[in-house]
């Protein structure tokens, strides 16, 4: 979690508070679309450049897929359990949990589908998930094994969480984390696009 992320978010919120009542939404929406285009191009380039590693990982067999599958199912189950406790609509809770830690994309897609309030909740919940995954990685590897740490990191296991996973669980945790994060990241826009019909 970089300081830049927090500063940019805080500056944006301040800007929004100061510009309340002015036609800010159109500007922000347009900037958001361009920024997301750049972000996805950048992510695509990194994935494409790692194609060989991805192919090599896939040859290790279907068992590697159990970690992202468990992470996805468990996250959605946790989101469903959180719905009645937090007084949220189950679909809203699923859409927040379905960010799998990718706070920027989750929040942007929620802002478009359901407005600012759910977007902020998605942003905060997924940001907290990323932070907790980073902090708890070492403990999770020691107590429950590397798959648990990879699952806790969610979609961030392929980028921000990767270095922490490698340090805590060795190269194998890094390989597993990269594949799991890649698949979960690919699942986020599809899942949120699907859930968007009911938001």
């Amino acid at each position: 979690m970089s300081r830049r992320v927090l500063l940019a978010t805080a500056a944006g919120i301040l800007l929004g508070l100061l510009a309340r009542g002015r036609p800010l939404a159109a500007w922000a929406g347009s900037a958001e679309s361009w920024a997301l285009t750049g972000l996805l191009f950048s992510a695509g380039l990194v994935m494409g450049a790692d194609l060989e590693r991805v192919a090599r990982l896939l040859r290790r067999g279907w068992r590697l897929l159990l970690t992202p599958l468990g992470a996805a199912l468990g996250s959605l189950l946790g989101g469903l359990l959180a719905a009645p406790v937090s007084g949220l609509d189950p679909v809203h809770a699923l859409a927040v949990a379905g960010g799998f830690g990718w706070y920027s994309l989750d929040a942007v897609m929620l802002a478009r589908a359901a407005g600012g309030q759910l977007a902020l909740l998605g942003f905060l919940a997924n940001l907290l998930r990323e932070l907790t995954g980073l902090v708890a990685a070492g403990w999770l590897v020691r107590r429950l094994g590397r798959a648990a740490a990879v699952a806790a990191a969610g979609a961030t296991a392929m980028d921000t969480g990767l270095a922490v996973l490698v340090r805590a669980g060795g190269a194998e945790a890094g390989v597993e984390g990269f594949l799991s994060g890649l698949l979960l990241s690919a699942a986020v826009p599809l899942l949120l696009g699907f859930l968007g019909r009911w938001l």
Partner: protein
Amino acid sequence: MNGIWLAALLLGFVLGATLRPGRVPLRWNERLGQASLVVLLLSLGAQVGADPTVWRHPGLLAGRALLLAWLPQLGAVLVTRFLVR
């Protein structure tokens, strides 16, 4: 996902896959990614700040965010452990 975003992701992927390893502009790409993220968060923050409904119950929002961060994370850990064992 809107068509332009999907196209951007695919274009990046194809470029990354077709360029030779040493020719992929990873440093520029990292800068592009960072700049995009900053603009994205700035615009997202601005939309949040300008929305009066967001600021009505900040305590409730924080409680919900904690629940929706930790319960899905706990679920992910438990289900994965069950499947992997």
